[in-house]
């Protein structure tokens, strides 16, 4: 019995106690499976700071938890369309990354972004887009269109997975039907809903975890993120990625400093650290998305250099857009449509 107690006590110290070997602490709150452990190790070594990584699985969970307080996090990585909400709710601090040493490495394209003009709050983490993934052994036609999931060809019916992301799905559908994002035109939205309700029986799932299901041939097509397409292709060479010409959403997740951070100095060190091309390449090497730091390509793993999923072809550049956050009233309408779809 005594031995069990001793063993338990030892295990508890590991599990419950924080270690005190480092000069400082840094608590990163990030999407799950999104942080390269090598990046963390490198940072810990360079600055002698102990870093903990804690995961979330949706923007709203992260927002709810941080807003409630007492969380102990220093840095968070919200998506572009949420950054302004974090600012409005007074949750993130003006860390002024634009005045940091490594800021010169940030690609001009990602400096004056609508959700954070001039980058007073956030540092780019990774960016990508939601598009079409198709197993071309099943379907040979044009894949650069949202009709793959909204008016599916018969070869793909019953084999389509759609990411359960309200904004991304509604955006593609609104664009597909020729409307504008954040529209509150009821006539038009009714068409949007009917289109989705009509298409849903032809889908097999609305789920995450797409990559392995292309490998196992459970899915034949998907409306999903490009980084996942890259990984799916590595497991099933028939998988190709398409850019919906009607319109598709870009996303960028950016690192922000929380107002109630306990270790703001270490957090700023980290923000500066990830703007270094070599370190940014580590981020990308892990989750397979582009990062927005100039010169990081040369440090990236072979499979990512010039990958067709990561380089948006010139002709489709203008079809992509960043989603702004719609007004609460419009958001409400969109939620209702979403509920109608999922009920």
């Amino acid at each position, binding site marked *: 019995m005594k031995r069990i107690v001793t063993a338990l006590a030892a295990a508890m110290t590991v599990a419950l106690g924080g270690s005190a070997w480092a000069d400082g602490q840094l608590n990163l709150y990030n999407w799950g499976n999104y942080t390269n452990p090598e990046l963390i190790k490198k940072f810990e070594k360079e600055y002698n700071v102990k870093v903990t990584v804690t995961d979330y699985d*949706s923007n709203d969970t992260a927002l709810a938890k941080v807003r409630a307080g007492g969380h102990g996090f220093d840095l968070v990585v919200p998506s572009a369309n949420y950054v302004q909400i974090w600012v409005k709710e007074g949750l993130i601090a003006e860390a002024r990354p634009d005045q940091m040493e490594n800021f010169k490495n940030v690609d001009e394209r990602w400096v004056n972004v609508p959700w954070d003009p001039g980058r007073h709050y956030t540092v780019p983490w990774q960016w990508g887009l939601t598009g079409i993934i198709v197993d071309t052994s099943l379907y040979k036609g044009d894949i650069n269109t949202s009709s793959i999931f909204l008016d599916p060809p018969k070869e793909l019916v019953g084999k389509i997975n759609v990411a359960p992301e309200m904004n991304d799905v509604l955006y593609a559908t609104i664009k597909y039907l020729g409307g504008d994002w954040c529209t509150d035109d009821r006539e038009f939205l009714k068409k949007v809903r009917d289109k989705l309700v009509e298409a849903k029986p032809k889908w097999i799932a609305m789920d995450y975890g797409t990559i392995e299901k292309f490998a196992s041939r459970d899915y034949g097509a998907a409306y999903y993120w490009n980084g996942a397409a890259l990984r799916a292709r590595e497991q099933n060479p028939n998988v190709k990625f398409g850019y919906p010409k009607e319109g598709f959403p870009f996303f960028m997740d950016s690192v922000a400093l929380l107002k109630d951070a306990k270790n703001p100095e270490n957090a700023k060190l980290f923000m500066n650290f990830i703007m270094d091309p070599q370190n940014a390449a580590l981020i990308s090497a892990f989750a397979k998305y582009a990062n927005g730091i100039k010169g990081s390509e040369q440090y990236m793993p072979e499979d990512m250099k010039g990958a067709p999923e990561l380089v948006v072809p010139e002709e489709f550049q203008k079809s992509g857009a960043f989603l702004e956050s719609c007004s609460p009233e419009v958001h409400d309408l969109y939620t209702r449509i979403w*509920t109608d779809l999922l*009920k």
Partner: protein
Amino acid sequence: MASAQEAAEAAARSDVRNRWLLSAPALLIIFFAAVGPLFIMLAYSFMAKGDYGDVKFGQFSLDGWFSVLFERDIFDDTLSLADANLSVFWRSLKLSVMTTAVTLFLGFPTAYFIATRPPEKRETWLFLITIPFWTNLLIRTFAMQEVIRNEGILNSVLLALGVIDRPIQIMFTDTAILFGMVYVYLPLMVLPLYAAMDKLDFRLVEAGYDLYATRFRVLWRIIIPLVKPGIIAGSILVFVPSLGAYVIPRVLGGGKNMMLGNYIELQFGQGRNWPLGAAISITLMAVVMVALLFYVRSATRGEAGREG
């Protein structure tokens, strides 16, 4: 005489007091970390919803409760019963009842089988029931996925046996959710059933046979009534969590059709309608509690009747 009665009353009072003391730790922990905080939910259900989730603190509103029952058509503003809520509720109820029934059907014979092994073997069988459940729910759900996939074990075996000539699509259907819930909640049925059966007095069974009862009559008239507390406990343990299941419908159901757990999560998450989420939750709790009250009442009344 009078003093004896007084002494008896005092003893009874002290017994009740001791019983309160004895249950105090459980009551306190539950109050602090489960029930107490729920009052916040009640308050939240009567507030106006915040723009980006949460509520506008102190702003009274009945919108949340209104939307539980009714919905204004988004397009022509007509008022109707909240069809979305009802269909989600109905699907959850249906699947939970089926889950409970199937786990009882499988769990009862299993628990009985274990309880009738020689005493030294029972614990081994019991451990066999629990071992799969030392891996967590998410992993078990994934494992289930491997079994019911189109190219999974189940379909392969059926194909090989010639029962079917092409794979049945089970994955991403309500059947998949049912499979998953039965699999995940089965030990919650077996363990309490076993606990009740383990102390079954087989002399009563023997008496039944002495009176020329058939095996079925013995089961129905003697064994089942005796282990009724176990059946009730098991059914509650399976039914209620399946009603609020979240992970299983998401992974096995493919997320296309929500159950109540997912619907509530939507309101607290992407939907940003916390008052509605709170109101639905309270409604659900109320329904479950009323149902249980009736269930427990009728079950105990039946027992009292037999004893009397």
